[in-house]
């Protein structure tokens, strides 16, 4: 009886080991392919921008991601795409215009990855921020062309307010001296 038990346990362990090893674990290069693939979502061709591809490749070049974590990330990508398809939305060009329920779901996928893998990331003010393993910021994911106009709006406004006050004072002095 005891022998049978041991044999059963051994078979069980072996089947688990064989089962696990037969599952094809995702490598970093496969993860990169998955990240940079084009997905058809309700007719909308969705893919990372060229800049985001460079970032994804750079991260995977610099840091190791285990097969288990790569599998987990791939699963989250699949879930995110499913959420996007289920939403029925056909235009994903502007994240800020997506319904808040979908935005929350997508944000949750990022947070799941951060919580369950070595890749640390967060979502702040609608931007995904990815961290280096040492806790410093790796990159903020954002659009390529930034607004580089003179950002003196606030200063100009303050200057105008101050000069308006100055003008009032001058006029008052004029009145007082009149």
């Amino acid at each position, binding site marked *: 009886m005891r022998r049978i038990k041991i044999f059963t346990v051994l078979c069980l362990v072996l089947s688990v080991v064989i089962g696990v090893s037969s599952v094809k674990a995702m490598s970093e290069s496969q993860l990169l392919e998955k990240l940079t693939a084009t997905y058809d979502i309700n007719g909308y061709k969705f893919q990372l921008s*060229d*800049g985001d591809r460079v970032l994804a490749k750079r991260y995977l070049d610099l840091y190791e991601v285990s097969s288990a974590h790569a599998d987990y990330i791939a699963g989250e990508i699949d879930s995110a795409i499913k959420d996007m398809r289920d939403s029925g939305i056909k235009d994903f060009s502007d994240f800020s215009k997506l319904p808040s329920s979908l935005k929350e779901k997508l944000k949750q996928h990022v947070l799941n990855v951060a919580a369950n893998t070595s890749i640390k990331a967060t979502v702040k003010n609608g931007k995904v921020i990815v961290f280096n393993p040492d806790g410093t910021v790796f990159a*903020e994911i954002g659009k390529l062309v930034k607004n*580089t*106009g003179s950002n003196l709006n606030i*200063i*100009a406004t303050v200057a105008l307010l101050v000069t308006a006050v100055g*003008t009032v004072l*001058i006029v008052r002095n004029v009145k007082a001296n009149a």
Partner: protein
Amino acid sequence: MHKKYKFKGKAFVTYVALSFLFVCVFIVIIYFGLNHTIRKYTNIINTVAIKESKNDRKVKFDNAQKKMTSIPSYGSKYGTIKIDKINLDLPLYYGDNEEILSYGIGHYAGSYFPGEGGSVILAGHNDPGYFEKILELGNNDKIVLDLNYGKFDYQIYETRIVSENDLSAFPIQDNEERLILYTCYPLGVGHKTERFVVYAHRVGETDA
């Protein structure tokens, strides 16, 4: 009873002119004199992640492989950009969010690093002391990036004005090392829908 003041023609004109002059002088002082200082201190108050003068990560470049093996942390300074023709010498930061651009010139993280053989995209505000004068640049002018891991020389081969939505003007490729500088166009306060873009090739065999 209050005595009602009546403006006399000459006095009115004088005081309106004085007020106008006051407004103009004040704006000019703020704009040209205190712009950088005010912006700098305003941002120090708001700063969360920016490390202005030091980079706490080692920046390493593999010369044989032509790629970075350790990159600066986002928001840290990792060199300077120098353009003699317009007396420009500014700090260069890794990253280009709003906060970073208020300190100096920002390197779009989704582009390549100098030496890697791809597009290097740098953004700067069009304010005085920043990228305002890149509008004066033309073909054959030189740009130098003096970085933590090497010195890189570039020569301008084209300047263009493009729409902010024209992403083809900002190609990210790794076939050829190309430096791309841009700033908002035309100059002035407010949102601009165009960008002035400078394209330069890497020249010489500067050590990395």
